[in-house]
């Protein structure tokens, strides 16, 4: 058996996504071997990230400020909003550097089996952003899973009265595909190939 503090670390690590008991054990033993200085650095980084990261008040992407770097950037095209499921989808688009507009992070997709309905998503906030005439186009970039498609259809119905152009990210994103795993080239091609919904 391992000493209590080491088992405790393994237990905490194994709760992280993608880390099973074996990896948890490897990471824990590695940290112990490296000594207290490295552990201190990691612990501080963890604390700082958890304490300083919050949601952008406009787009709900991750940010250290009230407004994220994208929303605060006057050089971005404020007339286009790309609607995505999670903050990591924003990173996927930003890596590609082919999109100059703004984002809106829903915080998930409609999925009754996970107990997620429209009321759990940042939909009202999106509608608020469409008031006024700044925004001309909304791109629905949810994944092409059943849930992503249903959410896009729901959004299209919801946004229609706002009178903006609505397009759906079309080609290139594989069925059941997760934007996070789509490479940048595919993503920029998908942006070019988006089609009008209304």
């Amino acid at each position: 058996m391992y000493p209590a503090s080491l088992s405790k670390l393994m237990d905490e690590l194994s709760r992280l996504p993608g880390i099973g008991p074996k990896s948890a054990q490897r990471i824990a033993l590695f940290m112990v071997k490296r000594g207290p200085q490295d552990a201190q650095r990691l612990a501080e980084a963890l604390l700082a990230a958890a304490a300083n990261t919050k949601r952008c008040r406009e787009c709900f992407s991750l940010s250290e400020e009230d407004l994220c770097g994208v929303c605060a950037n006057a050089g971005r095209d404020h007339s286009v909003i790309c609607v995505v499921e999670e903050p990591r989808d924003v990173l996927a688009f930003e890596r590609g550097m082919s999109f100059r507009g703004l984002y809106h992070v829903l915080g998930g997709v409609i999925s009754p089996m996970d107990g997620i309905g429209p009321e759990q998503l940042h939909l009202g906030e999106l509608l608020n952003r469409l008031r006024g005439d700044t925004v001309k186009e909304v791109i629905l970039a949810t994944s092409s899973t059943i849930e992503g498609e249903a959410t896009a259809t729901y959004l299209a119905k919801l946004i229609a009265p706002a009178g903006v152009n609505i397009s759906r990210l079309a080609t290139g994103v594989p069925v059941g595909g997760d934007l996070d795993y789509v490479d940048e080239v595919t993503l920029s091609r998908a942006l070019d190939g988006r089609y009008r919904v209304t």
Partner: protein
Amino acid sequence: MNVVTLQVEGFRNIEAADLLFQTRNLLVGPNGAGKTSIAEAVAVALNGRSFRTFDLAMLLRRGADYWRTVATVNQEDNSTHRIAISATSQQRERVKLDDRNVRITQLATDFPVVTFIPEDRDLVVGLPGIRREYLDSILARSDPSVYRLLSRAAKILKQRRNLIRSNNPDIVTLDIFDEELASASILISDARENLLGYLQGVVEEFNQRITGRSEEVCFRYLRSWKNDPLSDLKASRSYDFRTGSTSVGFHRDDFIIELNGLPAKSTASQGQIRSLAIALRVGSAQVLQNNIGEPPLLILDDVFAEFDRSRAARLVTAIGQYQTIATNTEHVDIMDDWSVYEISGGRIVSH
């Protein structure tokens, strides 16, 4: 496709076994000896799925740390492949095809297997779900786009069920799932009906070859909606809310099997039902062969027990083109030229 060798370890009541297959193979042994387990191991080795259970954890031999199957297979293009599948009580199945990790679902298309088990009489007399599953398993292996369609449709159905069972379901969301379900249902029912068109002639021919009599076989697909699934879904919405189920869609369809103009389910004799059921399976082998270009392996579990000598002889002739692995409690005299394995207590006792 031909399976050439099979190694089995820690599987059901089999500690370890090595088999070398010919075109025609008979596994003989008393009930519980392990002959069906060997046949099951062949199905698992090639397709990663069993015809006896959905839960592959059931396969692990009592007291064993792991189970493993390794099969070598020759395909039509003369290529040889090695499929190795193993699992432990801790870790689920891992599949290696020619030493590369692959998904378990890929195997069913590359190495088609068609199995007949005595319970297959339910194809004729059983519940509609058994007949839908029969059609869908042929479609899913024949066309990857239909496979994706079927899995999407199953997911839509699951989401819809969760939605109507939830407190205060959002009606716009329900509208969206109903539209998705309706369009998937139309596509699936059309694909199934087309398939039945192909199957009808093939099954009639095999049925005739097995029975030695000319009997007319006719399939009629039954949709669970009248003209438009979406309007029927909307009409049955309050009923669905009460029952927490979805009463219209691809998952409520069925097909009627008619023999000489009468529904086989209620009018056919036991012998007719059995022959029809085998004809349905062998017919599916021919359709799969046409669609994937690879003749399936036939596994016939306990078929010959209830057949008289002449019917058994006709069946053997009718399946002549397929590699076959059959099980039986005793030797069958018309099958002397088959390669026979005798199995007892989970071991091969003679070959």
